[in-house]
Every structure is written in C-alpha cells, then in structure tokens.
C-alpha cells in the first residue's frame, strides 16, 4: 500500500524557496530604501501594493497569474513570442508567483529596519563625501543585519509554506511544480496518510528549526526589536 516516499517535492520546495529569497533580496533592498524615505502619496500607494499579497487570498493571485501566463492571453502570448517562455505550469512561473506572493515578507522587515536608523548616521556618511549607494551598502545595511536576516528567513519560510498559488498555476508536475505542500495534499487525497505524514513531519521540523535559529540569533544580537 505504501509507495516509497519521493524526495523530489522536498528538494523542489527548497530550491523554490532559495531562489525566491535570492531574487527578492536584491529587489527588496532598493525598494525598501526608497520606501523608507519621507512619504509622498505615490509612495503610500506603492506601500499598499507591496502589502497586498498579505491580505489577498492566494486564489486571487493564482487566478490572475493563470490568466496572465496563458498563451491565450495577450501578456502570455507576448512572453511566448519574445522569450519563447511559457510561465504557466513551469518552475519559472512558480518562481515569479512566489516572488510576488512573498514580497511583503522581505520588504517590510528591511524597510522598518532602515526607518529605525537615526538620520544622523546617513548625514554623517554624506558629509564625509560618500554617495547614496556607498552609504546604503557600507553604512546602513551593516547596521540592520537582524532585519535583513528576518526578511530572508521569513521569505524562505513563507515560500516553503506556499500552497494555494502553486496549486492553481503549477499543474502538479513531478520534479517541476509538485512542491511538498502540494504533495501532501495529493497524498491525503489519495488516502496515503502515511506518506502525507512523512512530508508533513519533515516540513514541520524544518520550519521550526528555521524559525528557532532566527529567534536565537536575533536574541543574541539584541539590537532591533522585530516582533
């Protein structure tokens, strides 16, 4: 009755989480730096957009992505024509979806970290002749390490837990889009409680360890209070 448990969904989940975190990290820093400056109405709108994935159900995001990525749609057709890429039912598609879906988890901690720094830090650096970019890289970012770490870990963990979007645009392809969360769902549906349990326990332990290390590390740094 028990089929051997496959490791590919777990591996795929880690791969997706890793690349999502990597991409988001480089997107989030400039966006967060921009958002942490003084507010204009335009920035407030940008902030709302960044936060949207927090409140929107994954089914809404999944639904729009399914439509957008389909070759029957103008945007999907363009992608296919210009880049010969079809994002629906592909790992790359999941990656794009995950980046959007986890956006606030990376941007919010970095943004609040940057906002909490005293302005004098930045001003001192400027008066010493450093450019904005140098200041960000050499002065500001090293001072918000706990925030950066929080952003990285939350994004990674959140992507591991992603389910609804993957279910809607993934197509459940082994090795490509069948992530661990979908594999669990699949095993439960097929009455393979044993296998579902194995996946679930692995995810549980993994998520606990990741968060535990984060809290431990942040406690040691004892700098910025994040939660």
């Amino acid at each position: 009755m028990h089929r051997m448990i496959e490791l590919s969904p777990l591996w795929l989940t880690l791969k997706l989480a890793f690349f999502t975190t990597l991409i988001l990290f480089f997107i989030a820093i400039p966006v967060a730096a921009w958002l942490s400056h003084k507010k204009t109405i335009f920035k407030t709108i940008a902030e709302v957009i960044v936060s949207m994935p927090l409140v929107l159900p994954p089914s809404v995001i999944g639904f729009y992505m399914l439509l957008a990525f389909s070759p029957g749609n103008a945007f999907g057709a363009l992608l296919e024509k210009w880049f010969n890429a079809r994002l629906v039912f592909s790992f790359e598609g999941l990656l794009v979806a995950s980046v959007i879906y986890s956006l606030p988890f990376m941007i919010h901690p970095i943004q609040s970290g940057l906002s909490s720094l005293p302005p004098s830090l930045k001003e001192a650096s400027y008066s010493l002749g450093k450019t904005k970019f140098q200041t960000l890289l050499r002065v500001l970012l090293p001072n918000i390490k706990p925030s950066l770490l929080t952003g990285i870990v939350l994004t990674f963990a959140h992507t591991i837990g992603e389910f609804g979007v993957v279910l809607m645009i993934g197509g459940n392809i082994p090795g490509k889009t069948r992530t661990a969360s979908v594999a669990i769902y699949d095993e439960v549906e097929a009455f393979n409680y044993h296998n579902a349990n194995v996946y679930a326990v692995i995810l549980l332990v993994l998520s606990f360890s990741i968060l535990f290390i984060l809290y431990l590390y942040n406690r040691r740094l004892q700098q910025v209070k994040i939660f």
Partner: protein
Amino acid sequence: MVFLTAFTSIAGFTQIKITVAVAANMQYAMEALKAEFNKTDKTEISIVLGASGKLTQQIMQSAPFDVFISADTSFPEKLMQNNLAAEPPKVYAQGILVLWSAEPGIQPAADLKLLLNENIQHIAIANPKTAPYGAAAEFILKKYGLYDKIASKLVTGESITQASQFIATQAADIGFTAKSIVISAEMKGKGKWIELNRNDYPPIKQAAVLLKYGRENHAAAAKNFYDFLFSKQAKLIYKNFGYIVQ
C-alpha cells in the same frame, strides 16, 4: 424567552435542507436536476462540488452530506465498505471521455497522435488518483502506448473542473475532460473537442449513494432526492448533458 420559542417554532416550519456531494463533471447537469426536482419537492438542495476521491475523503472524515453523486463506482463502494452508506450504491449514468482544445490551431483527433506534436507543450488531465475521468484518460494513453512519451507534458488538475479550466483558459494546449463539460452552456463553442473511442477505456459508470448521515438526519428528504436520481426525468437530463443512460 418568548422570542426564543417563537424563533424555534418558526425554524421548525422552515424548509428542510439537504446537502449533496457532487462529482465535478456533474456540475452542470446538477443544476438542471435540482430545478427539475424542486418542481415537485421544495426540499432545499445545497451542492458541494469536488473530485470524487476528495469528496469520499471528506465523507470518511464525517462530512455532513446526505447523498453522494460520484463519477465512478469504486468510491461509493468504498463508503459502503466503511459502513457510511445507507444502502448499496447504484449506477445512474455513464460518462464519456473527450479530448478538448481551446486553441484555434489545434484540431483534436481520436487517435491521440497529435499529442506527440512539438507545438503541444501541456496536456491537461484530472488527477488520476482522485478523478475517474483522469484515470480513464491515463488508461487510454497507456493503451495507445503514448503515456511514457507524453508524461512530461501532463499537467494535473485536482478535479475535472480544474483540468477543464486549464484547457478553457488555454494555459494547457489540449486536455482530457468529460463530454458533459464541453457541451455545457458555459463552455459550448469554446474550441473543438472529439469523443474518444468508448471501447478503449473502461466504462465510466457513475454511481450515487444514499449516505448514512442522510438517513439519520433527513431520512425522507434525502431518500426522495436519491430516488429522483434514477427517475425517468433525471435520465432525460443525463442524456441531454452528454451521458449515456440505460
């Protein structure tokens, strides 16, 4: 207190409501069945749609469903074995498997050879483990010796509805679904479809079962609706919605 009594007495007179778990392929026929049934019996019917396997799963975890309308016979049998059915399941109709594409350039053909074409990248199928139409599609692909060659193109919908949605939105180039879906008013005219050879896959005999929950909670109402599923009027509806009836 008076208010409470008044309230409960009103509640006592309200219409009985039964919940019917319905295999996804039956979603369109179900609306017609409901309307026909309510012409003579005012029992309110609430519908829960899903893949047959998933609904079976839910019933086994004591979901409050009165009647289960499956897309096959094995899931209702399973409920019977688990002592969750009030009486043995009965076949109400037989389903027809079709190949369907919404892309203008693709003409589905019953020999399935076109699935090997390079311009077909994604083939939608319902999850064979939980959806009987998915299992039938997998069977026919294996029978034609195509399964291993196109396995990497298969995208799995969690039910026949999701597989159909992949096809209708052209997210998948082509796919397998139920005839009842492609001839429904909602999907009619969207792309092209063809019936697959009925001798090449095991007959999709669809059975319904009266559940124990139904007998225990709404005995008369559930039984009336269950019996209606095998009536002459219901059979006409199945036929109009793309099923074979004996």
